């Protein structure tokens, strides 16, 4: 047992688990700020509400499980889950939508499986997927990128009124607009991609808004990489496989497929690559396994986007790959020193003969 700990010494180290999670929260700031800039205060209300709900749900469960509440909240895992779910939902989502999502994320996906470290699925994505399936209408109503300060944009009081649920489940039409991926997904089969874009199907500035948000997530991801909070394996494999699949599809049939850049920046790909897929608890373990895991997510994203029913697919792709993690883990064990080859599969080692020392 080591009596010396890295974080208690002067060497460069991310610190304890709570600080690690805090860094993830900090790294979401560029993305959140850009989202707010383009899509209004609804982003902030989403996230703040989600955080409050996340903390109270976590505290409730901890009380029921008779575990220390403050120490658990300090691991910041509920905070990160709340931020990620809040940022994924359409801005100014009503409170009940957030609550259902957070209950699914914190209670069902995390604590019913044993709490932090024991959840096989990414909690935020469980919440998101549940909402997407159960409440498709409010989940696909993204606000138009009216800008934070423009006169058409809803004021903070409008938003507060809306999230209380008093104004009905749908947003006023003037506020909403499809996401770029959604619009492209619903493009009629007979329309060529170039023609489609020529009709300007999106609200003004939508594409720029989405691209800049993606780049902001990328900036946050770079911070995580620099701080060594995440490894390069999952984002690189995931983005690589998205790019590869998109390039192949685009090269074969550019008239019906989005460009690689569109797939990379148009939706939640970068957000997913740096903030969702990299959740260490539900990801594959070994470095090699992480490559397979990331590549699988990328391929599933492209498969669902082109042949599936959903315009963006990060949540489903991540959840599906979460299923495969035990399998990946068994088959990607690194070669241990003193072994000629790695152990693969679930068979016990051949004749575990008595160790000689």
């Amino acid at each position, binding site marked *: 047992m080591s009596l*010396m*700990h*890295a974080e208690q010494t002067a060497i460069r180290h991310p610190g*304890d688990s709570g600080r*690690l999670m805090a860094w993830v929260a900090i790294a979401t700031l560029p993305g959140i700020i850009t989202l707010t800039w383009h899509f209004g205060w609804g982003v902030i209300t989403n996230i703040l509400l989600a955080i409050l709900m996340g903390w109270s749900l976590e505290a409730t469960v901890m009380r029921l499980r008779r575990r220390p509440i403050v120490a658990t909240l300090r691991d910041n895992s509920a905070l990160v889950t709340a931020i990620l779910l809040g940022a994924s939902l359409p801005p100014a989502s009503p409170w009940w939508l957030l609550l259902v999502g957070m209950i699914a994320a914190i209670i069902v996906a995390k604590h019913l499986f044993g709490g932090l470290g024991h959840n096989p699925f990414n909690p935020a994505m469980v919440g998101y997927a549940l909402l997407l399936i159960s409440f498709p209408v409010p989940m696909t109503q993204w606000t138009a990128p009216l800008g934070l300060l423009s006169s058409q944009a809803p004021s903070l009081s409008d938003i507060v009124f809306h999230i209380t649920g008093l104004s009905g489940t749908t947003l006023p039409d003037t506020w909403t607009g499809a996401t770029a991926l959604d619009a492209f997904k619903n493009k009629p089969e007979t329309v060529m991609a170039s023609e489609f874009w020529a009709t300007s199907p999106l609200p003004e500035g939508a594409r720029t808004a989405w691209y800049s948000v993606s780049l902001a997530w990328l900036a946050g991801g770079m911070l995580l990489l620099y701080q060594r909070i995440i490894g390069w394996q999952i984002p690189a494999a995931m983005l690589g496989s998205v790019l590869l699949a998109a390039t192949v599809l685009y090269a074969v049939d550019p008239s019906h497929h989005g460009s690689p850049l569109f797939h990379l920046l148009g939706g939640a790909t970068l957000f997913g690559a740096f903030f969702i897929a990299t959740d260490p608890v539900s990801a594959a373990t*070994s470095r090699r396994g992480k490559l397979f895991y990331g590549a699988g997510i990328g391929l599933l994203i492209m498969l669902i986007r082109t042949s599936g029913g959903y315009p963006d697919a990060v949540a489903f792709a991540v959840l599906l790959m979460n299923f495969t993690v035990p399998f990946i883990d068994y088959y990607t064990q*690194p070669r*241990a*020193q003193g072994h000629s080859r790695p152990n693969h599969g679930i068979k016990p080692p051949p004749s575990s003969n008595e160790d000689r020392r």
Partner: protein
Amino acid sequence: MARHFDFPGGIHPPARKQRSAEAPLRSAPLPSRVVLPLQQHIGTPAEPCVSPGQYVRTGERIAIAQGMVSTDIHASISGWVRSIESHPVPHPSGERASCIVIDGDDKDEWQRLPVLNWRQSHHAELIERLRHAGIVGLGGATFPAQIKAAIGEHHRIDSLVVNAAECEPYITTDDVMLRTHADDVVEGARLMAHLCGAERILIGIEDDKPEAINALEASLRASGTDDDAPIALRVIATRYPSGGEKQLIKRLLNREVPSRGLPADIGVLCHNPGTLRAAVQAVREGRPMVSRVVTLTGAAVNRPGNVEARLGSLMCDLLAAAELREAEVSRLIMGGPLMGFELSHTEIPLVKASNCLIAATQDELPTAPPEQPCIRCGACETACPAGLLPQQLYWYARSHDHDKAELFNLFDCIECGACDFVCPSHIPLAQYFRAAKDEIRFRRHEALKAEHARHRFELRQARMEREAAEKEARRQARKAAIRRRSQDQGLSEDSQPTETTDNAANAVMEDDIKTLRIAQAAARAAVKKAEKALARASETGEGDIDDLEVQLATARENLRTTESRLSAAREARENAS
């Protein structure tokens, strides 16, 4: 810098070696009383050969090695044996063990073994000397040196590696000792290479010990004859745990010690410089192992440094000599901060395994924060020098899933603590792994014990069966004798059976005899096999000889049973015809 290879992972903890490395090697004051545990080595404890009240001189044997893996214990001061009693010894759980306590007379009168010249002595004589001088590996494992020296009889050794890496923070024993006694270490390496038949010697040392490297270079230039194995000094970049035997061999030779194997399996023998110096002193000066160099350091001592201290000195005396500020100590550690353990008090003796004592203040080595759940961040995987997945092992160790833990190569863990060091959730991973290993070993031991019991039961069954068969054979023999007697008296015609039944009975008997002859051949083969297994075990020292003897006895009983049955059947046939 010489070319070197690499092992995966590794960490760069703060070295904190400066304070103790600056001071020159000192001699600790002669203790007035020593406490010498009977087990200071891996293997069987030695058996005391002195009685209370007896006068012993420094270097006199006070306990005799028992069995193959064991070594002698010597008085480390001259004086009177006070008692043989249970006393606390250095152990993570504060255990007590049998110790010989000697009250010193402050004269330090020596009794040495005869001086030998290793270049002219027989191997057997030198190996015997290592055993009688109580030499054990001083790198931490305390493995008796004579076994390693004799390893050339079973394995072909091509390289002797001198492990002077000393990678763990705080510890500077090898560094400081090499600065003053590099000549002895080099000669010791030549002696060991001579004994195991190594063709070359590699000295592996980390680059943070420039003075020791200079001293080694100087002594390499100055010494050696043409017949000696060539010695190469390999300076490697500092990284924990380069001083791990397997890790150093990988770095110097790019060979991997096979899983569950020994370095000897790949032609390498590894020795700590302290052991080499002790070995050469035992041969050249006839000086048994009665002292060792120990680092006394930590922020709570005023005079950190390395001292050559008599074994059995109490740690409190050693620390007092290093001017310990007792009030400031928050934890007292034997060994390094990564692989060592905490001592609950200091009234315990210095043993052959004690390489370092750290009296740390709270600021220096703060208590670990509470353990948090594993978030599988993979920091441990990046640090693991054995290429394991500690996060998975932790999962299986915690759930006592031993098969899975072994599937993830639990037994390749060297317990270096690199994973603990980097773990952001402060999980004492190495401790979990050690516990899991102990549990698995215990279960295997239990299973083995059950099997031995079964073997003993089988022996009893076989013996009873044999007795029954012999009884039956005797009965048949008596019957035959009676029949023969009556035949002689001409009464045979009356008992002549009818022709048909005779033929049928004869056929059945022939079949029986055939079956019994096959059984006899099989029993004979089983005896041969058991004999061979026993012979092999007693030659190599591996395996359980008692159990094999039981199995051999069972096989012999079975053979006698079949033999008796066969003779009984033959008599019966005779009787019938």
